[in-house]
């Protein structure tokens, strides 16, 4: 896989409308070689449409998409691996035949494809299933086979659309380990997710989208630094009502035994700790932790901010 730091994918001011629905509305970003890039946003934000345009499955109405510096061509598909959100395999076909077919469509010779398929099946502990029909696989096994199909041709860029959706915790770990492995070997991964927690654990850079538009983009650590307010996580028994009136507090996400307290811009976390200590009579605190804000929080804040600005205009 490519190791240099030039962009593998460049998306320049791309638009895609379906009738009156603006699925993608002027989005630009680039993915550098060797990084893990995340497109983040809620369902219906336009993530899949963006990935489909990068895969050249649908064309943009406006804007340009470059692959390795040149205009994205049909033959570039052979250098990209794609795991769509809506993924499945022919039920009545043998696992090996399915993998060989998909690898051949990616330009591999039949013999090379067979060899690669056997190797990958062995790697995922599925060597005994090569000659069985896809319909005999468990859901977890089928997901592994789908993943193999996206990497069997050793692509320059791997695109994963909601890769963790529907995965059980064990499969999630297996997939995350593999994405980590690709990064360690210098591979490039572009993936989309609505699960911000997963994105926080994996990505080096992100693009946040909502209603087809960019909300934020850049390095994850910079974004957190720039947009995040300090947050205190509390596990408690009792009442936190007194915090709502405090000048230190900008907002609280309250649950019965858990709360995320967002501090105002210049507030000192120590003062909050002291405030809680003075109310120890009505409260028993099990955990007090100063956190950097979650991506989820930043996203919600930024979307709200944008709406407010648009409302003013």
């Amino acid at each position, binding site marked *: 896989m490519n190791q240099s730091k030039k962009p593998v994918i460049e998306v320049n001011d791309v638009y895609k409308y*379906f*009738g009156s629905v603006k699925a993608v509305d002027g989005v630009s970003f680039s993915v550098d070689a060797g990084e893990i890039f995340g497109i983040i946003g809620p369902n219906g934000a336009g993530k899949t449409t963006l990935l*489909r345009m990068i*895969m050249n*499955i*649908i*064309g943009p*109405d406006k804007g340009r998409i470059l692959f390795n510096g040149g205009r994205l061509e*049909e033959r570039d*598909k*052979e250098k*990209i691996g*794609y*795991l*769509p959100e*809506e*993924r*499945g*395999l*022919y*039920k*009545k*076909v043998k696992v090996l035949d399915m993998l060989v*077919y*998909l690898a*051949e*469509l*990616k330009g591999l010779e039949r013999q090379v494809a067979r060899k690669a398929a056997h190797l990958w099946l062995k790697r995922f502990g599925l060597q005994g299933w090569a000659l069985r029909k896809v319909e005999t696989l468990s859901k977890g096994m089928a997901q592994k086979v*789908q993943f193999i*199909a*996206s990497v069997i041709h050793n692509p320059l860029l791997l695109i994963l659309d909601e890769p963790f959706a529907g995965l059980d915790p064990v499969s999630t770990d297996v997939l995350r380990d593999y994405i980590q492995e690709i990064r360690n070997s210098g591979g490039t991964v572009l993936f989309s997710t609505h699960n911000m927690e997963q994105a926080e654990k994996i990505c080096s850079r992100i693009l946040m989208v909502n209603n087809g538009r960019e909300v934020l983009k850049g390095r994850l650590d910079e974004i957190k630094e720039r947009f995040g307010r300090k947050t205190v996580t509390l596990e408690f028994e009792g009442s936190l009502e007194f915090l709502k009136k405090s000048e230190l507090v900008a907002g609280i996400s309250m649950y019965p035994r858990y709360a995320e307290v967002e501090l105002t811009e210049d507030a000192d976390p120590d003062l909050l700790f002291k405030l809680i200590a003075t109310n120890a009579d009505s409260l028993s605190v099990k955990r007090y932790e100063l956190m950097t804000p979650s991506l989820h929080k930043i996203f919600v804040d930024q979307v709200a901010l944008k709406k407010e600005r648009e409302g003013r205009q």
Partner: protein
Amino acid sequence: MKLWKVIKMEFKMIAANRAFIILTIIGPFLILAVTVLPSYLAMKSSPEEKTVAIAGGDRELVTLIKESALHSGIEIVELPDNPEILKSRLLNEEIDGYVILPGEIKSATTVNYVTSTGADWATIEKLQGIIGSAVTMLKLREAGVPTDRVGEIMTRPRLVPKKLSKSGEERSEDYLTGFFTVLAFTVLLYMTILLYGQSIGRSVVMEKTQKTVEILLSSVRTDELLFGKILGSAFASILQYVFWIGVTVFSIKVFGPMLGLTLNIPLESRLLGYLVLYFLLAFFLYSSIYAALGAASSDEQNLGQLSWPLIIFLVLPMVSISVITSNPDGNFSVFLSLFPLTSPIVMFQRIAIGNPPVSSVLLSIGIILVTTAFTVVLSARIFKVGILLTGKRHTIREILRWLHYR
């Protein structure tokens, strides 16, 4: 070439399907059942002799009726003119029916024939001839025509239908034989077009329900996937079709004479050639439409609902068969033989029963080809958008809007 790989995979999936294999094997038996069985049964079952009682009428007339009925398959018995006796004999099934001759038979305009089961048209026809000739002979005798000349006067020529083919050859062929030929091949065309068209529609829907489509589109273009599926399915279907016709023709030629049956249906190579030609034309026309419907459907049930208007055009030539065969060059037949969705079956019907002008045949082929090219372009557009939209049903309006998407 990626298209070739898609074709191969599609062919493999269809040909390895158990239902396809079973249908390939039993297909010829179904075709034989439709084509040969009726003529075999008609040949083996010689018409049953009927017993008809005559009551009333004078002696001379009854004698004449008995003479006319010789070798006709109807046995005439004389019974007393007593309604009670006639009824009880009929209800006891000793006779198949009875006729009470009116006293003034020579001036009678109608004569009643009474049966317990409803009379079949063949017996009525014969009985009408028998009684009619006897009455005419009686009248001739009474008019003074010498008895020995009556027979000669009564003789009349029989009309024998002959069909003149393009090559100038005349051949005896009655209307019913032609009708059954057309019916058999129409059923065959109808069944196969519907079968293969629906199979392509289902195969496209399957890409959506089994969620394979987006993985495939990350490697191939939408039109490569669409044409790969249609052509892969076409190879499997044509293989099955050729196998069916081959086995059927072989069985008829080899086993037919052994069983002592001659086939009423003329299996000329020219007609078989047209059958295959119009089958192929219909196949590609309907396949491209069914593929688009498949792409626009959310599941098989939805496909069934969307495709029923199409079935009307396939059924139309079946229900109009008597109109088309009795008047193959009439306006209705000519229109249906040029309208693209009914053209493959109806033009074949016209060729099988009559002699449509070569220009009409060529025109129908041209119209079907142009329409197919047009539907392929439209289908590719619908396919391109529809194939990626899963889990939701779409209105016709939405589907038409897809045609404008890039």
